[in-house]
């Protein structure tokens, strides 16, 4: 084999980089499912809890384009036929009134940074 040293060194560097997430996180606390605080003043979201957990980003994306670009403001729930105003702040955050205790719970654990709150104003946190 030509350039044995260089090839093996290169492979070693590759393996170290590739396994970075594993050895970097060894010893840190085990994953615990985040527990976002559910609203007290209402029982039912616009769709079922399971669906929302998986699809809320797509839903918000669609709502955004519908409202901003097409002027369509009404959303009819497929769960119970109820009609909602398509609005993050005026609908979602009216029930989920704390960003810290709801949105951030999962987003922090998952280390995702949606840019919603660069523009949209989160409700004031109760101290």
């Amino acid at each position, binding site marked *: 084999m030509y350039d044995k040293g260089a090839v093996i060194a290169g492979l070693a560097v590759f393996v170290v980089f590739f396994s970075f997430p594993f050895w970097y996180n060894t010893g840190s606390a085990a994953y615990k499912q985040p527990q976002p605080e559910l609203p007290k003043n209402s029982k039912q979201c616009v769709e079922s809890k399971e669906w929302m957990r998986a699809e809320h980003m797509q839903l918000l994306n669609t709502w955004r384009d519908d409202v901003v*670009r097409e*002027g*369509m403001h009404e959303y009819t729930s497929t769960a119970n036929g109820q009609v909602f105003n398509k609005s993050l702040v005026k609908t979602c955050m009216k029930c989920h009134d704390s960003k810290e205790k709801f949105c951030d719970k999962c987003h922090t654990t998952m280390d995702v940074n949606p840019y919603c709150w660069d523009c949209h*104003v989160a409700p004031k946190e109760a101290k």
Partner: protein
Amino acid sequence: MKNTRRKFLKVAGLAVLGWSMRPASRLMAAHGAQSAEGLFMASKHGAPKHGEGLHAGRWIMLIDTNKLTPAIEQKCINACHTNHNVPDIETKQNIKWIWAEPLHNVFPEQMHENIPGGTERTTLVLCNHCTNPPCVRVCPTKATFQREDGIVMMDFHRCIGCRYCMAACPYGSRSFNFMDPRPHIKDAIPEFPTRTKGVVEKCEFCSERLAEGKLPYCVEVSEGAMMFGDLEDPESEVRKVLASRYSIRRKPELGTEPGVYYLI
């Protein structure tokens, strides 16, 4: 046998091409009844047609230059800027949705110094919501677009901040977020989003208020100096005023057909 298969494939290929034309052409320029966004060309977008909001064929605004006083102007500006979270920046990188400007700046081609009150008198300027908006024509991402009721909208989620629309606007109605606006907003109103650094913004004729059945903020506090209504409705208040008083628009020679009329 060989020949017929060949022939069949040719015809089938052509047919597929033909069938694909219709949906493709529809995608390229979707507008009218089907108000979805065209794949290629900027097209008119849907405006709410039902529900509790206010609807119009073509929204226009009238500004009575004689009724406006500096105090009223300031009230209009404050009402708009506070409720739309417009940041208060002192430098030349400032942001304005509606502001007061001397008449000789507003109508550089149409003023002379001997008009009553002189040309230093101010009036309000804002986005003209043109019928032929140059900003919409130049936007490379359709981030700024025109609704069927004439309102020129901004999609802050899509704007890439190229500022081509600012170069294209012949009225200087657009502002760019050179910096993060948040530190320059005293108390952000939660009902309306702020913007983020790197996007362009402007007046949207209070489309969010129209959807709730309310008139724009500036019109509401203008003490009758501003009016808002449907140009296409012959019975509307604005049509009656336009028919009875002399009005001008900014830079009519450019063919943009502004939706803001100034009563003289």
